[in-house]
């Protein structure tokens, strides 16, 4: 007999299920709107030019393959911090921060979660927005934390339930941990306006909460890296010492290279050094030290002026295409004669859109039109092209009229 007879089969991944069903479909008009990766207007993966150039530069340097330090490639971590905080940030200039390289967004979140479990003794509770990225909950749970929620998305308006959020957040027990999506909220695409961020910051400060920002879409949301990092920078300016997870999967298209970073804003440089030493102690028994390739590409881009300029243009290009697809989808729905209010599609931002479609409508979209998305009505706008946006509008109109 086996040691593993009692091991249950793990539940199938819901998003993977969408892609599997899509692959099996023979309809030539099929659309995969579950994909969480950017696609160009031909529906193809897009390798950024600045990435290709950076790779060529790296190859020509003929570097060795010696282990990176546990905390990662220094040029990368410094550039990541500067990108998030801004070059004029007092926190950045004073050195009162520590940034370690993480395995893209997930790995960075997990390092942070483990760090909080070990060193944030005030609370085990992490408050997530309702809804949040599906993987947030198991990450924090596996790290030994407990999950709570605050109201966020209003399904009636397909937008932010700001009063509900403020109400819930103002009641969060002091010294709890609150997770905020810096921009391009996943899965809803609903972000607070700057005025709303200011009120959130004030409340969070009053409740003395530890703020954990997840920034997976800097640059990718509005097309402007400074605009997308506004909330992160504002909170720090208000004296809130945040912790932050960054991903370069989407904004540099480095998905499989796993480039990410985890940052702790500290009281001073000395505290930062002590925090760094503890982060390394957490990382070493996980995977010893991080993979070089993605970090080196990102570092080359961020630290080479020409490449950085090119990157800013390309990331704006990706964001603009997404925004344009949103606009076209709405105008096509109008053309189809839909009487519904689809404003939320253009109000929302980033890769994902909560359409407001109900499960029965989603099922019809899949069965009758071969348009694949998750049951919650979430679509990846990255899967929409100028070639298929008309078909998508037609299909949505048919199931909602």
């Amino acid at each position: 007999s086996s040691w593993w007879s009692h091991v249950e089969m793990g539940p199938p991944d819901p998003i993977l299920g969408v892609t599997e069903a899509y692959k099996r479909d023979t309809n030539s008009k099929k659309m995969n709107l579950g994909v969480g990766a950017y696609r160009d207007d031909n529906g193809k993966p897009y390798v950024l030019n600045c990435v290709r150039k950076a790779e060529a530069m790296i190859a020509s340097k003929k570097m060795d393959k010696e282990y990176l330090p546990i905390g990662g490639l220094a040029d990368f971590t410094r550039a990541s911090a500067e990108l998030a905080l801004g070059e004029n940030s007092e926190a950045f200039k004073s050195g009162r921060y520590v940034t370690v390289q993480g395995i893209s967004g997930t790995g960075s979140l997990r390092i942070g979660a483990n760090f909080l479990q070990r060193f944030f003794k005030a609370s085990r509770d992490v408050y997530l927005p309702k809804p949040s990225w599906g993987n947030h909950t198991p990450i924090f749970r596996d790290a030994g934390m407990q999950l709570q929620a605050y109201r966020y998305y209003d399904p009636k308006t397909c937008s932010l339930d700001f009063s509900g959020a403020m109400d819930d957040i103002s009641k969060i027990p002091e010294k709890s941990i609150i997770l905020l999506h810096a921009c391009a909220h996943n899965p809803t695409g609903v972000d607070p306006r700057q005025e709303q961020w200011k009120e959130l910051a004030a409340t969070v400060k009053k409740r003395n909460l530890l703020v954990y920002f997840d920034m997976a879409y800097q640059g990718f949301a509005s097309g402007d890296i400074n605009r997308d990092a506004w909330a992160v920078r504002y909170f720090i300016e208000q004296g809130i010492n945040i912790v932050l997870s960054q991903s370069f999967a989407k904004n540099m298209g480095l998905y499989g290279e796993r480039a990410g970073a985890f940052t702790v804003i500290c009281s001073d440089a000395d505290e930062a050094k002590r925090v760094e030493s503890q982060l390394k102690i957490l990382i070493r028994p996980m995977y010893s030290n991080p993979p070089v390739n993605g970090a080196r590409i990102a570092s080359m881009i961020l630290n080479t002026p020409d490449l950085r300029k090119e990157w800013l243009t390309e990331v704006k290009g990706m964001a603009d295409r997404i925004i344009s697809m949103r606009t076209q989808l709405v105008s096509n729905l109008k053309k189809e004669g839909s009487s519904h209010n689809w404003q939320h599609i253009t109000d929302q931002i980033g890769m994902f859109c909560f359409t407001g479609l109900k499960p029965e409508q989603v099922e019809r979209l899949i069965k009758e039109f071969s348009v694949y998305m998750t049951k919650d009505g979430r679509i990846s706008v990255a899967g929409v092209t100028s070639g298929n946006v008309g078909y998508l509008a037609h299909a949505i109109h048919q199931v909602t009229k």
Partner: protein
Amino acid sequence: AYRTDEGQPWVLPVVKKVEQMIANDNSLNHEYLPILGLPEFRANASRIALGDDSPAIKENRVGSVQSLGGTGALRIGAEFLRRWYNGNNNTATPVYVSAPSWENHNSVFMDAGFKDIRTYHYWDAAKRGLDLQGLLNDMEHAPEFSIFILHACAHNPTGTDPTPEQWKQIAAVMKRRSLFPFFDSAYQGFASGSLDKDAWAVRYFVSEGFELFCAQSFSKNFGLYNERVGNLTVVGKDADNVQRVLSQMEKIVRTTWSNPPSQGARIVATTLSSPQLFDEWKGNVKTMADRVLLMRSELRSRLEALGTPGTWNHITEQIGMFSFTGLNPKQVEYMVKEKHIYLMASGRINMCGLTTKNLDYVAKSIHEAVTKIQ
């Protein structure tokens, strides 16, 4: 890490070649790998460990999880065992680590949640060899179902491996007492120069019907240190068990790193799946192993020629990157302070640090340390 005779890091020629192939292939992109990793990498990596003719592979009862280096493979395995082995979430299952061992073994299993991490006898300082009796005795008295971390070859840090006969005795006790073998294989090929020879112990356990884990690292044998290429090989009783195990490992991977880095896995997969590149790789591996073997024999012969007190056959009998010289802490201090030769307080030296240029100096220094300091 390996060093050439010039004391430099060495990117394997086959790796350079394959990296160029990858760079020139415009059909490749940077999309996410599946959660468990690159399929071609996983299958080839496990095949390397278990052998082309492995009955376990033929019987479709082998699973693989691409991981971040050997450390990542150990961690995923440890996390899985803590959740699913010997009951559900049984953090009390004893985990045995050799005395001494790679110091990170302890931390990996501790951070995975195990509460009872113990040592098993391994290094006999007096006779400078394996304390087999102590080891077997610890296994006899370990609680049933205990987990034992075994070094597949080139034991770190002692360089002392059981002989095949000794492995057979170890396996017999482990089978009788229902102990779980978790192999750490960081030096396959790098130790003896032969992939098959270095995998003998793992394959023997498989042939004896064990269900086991083997954490593989391609850091040293491919020189891919910073790309973090590793693989957790899972051998189970049958395909159904292995499938369920992998589905649960997927969940663990998803909250640790979501999916693994692609560059290193691509290099290894491309190399292992091409007969020419595979041969070229084996040649590169043998180059590294042979240099280390040469340094061992040259150091030993110098010490014996100098008449350095003590016996020095352990230098050539030990295998792999490291050697437990037998120098005591005071002698080590002498080496570091007076001779500027850096080694661990345990007397462990990294054989890769030896070159034809420094052999004489190192031998003389050891001679001085041993004769001047008791």
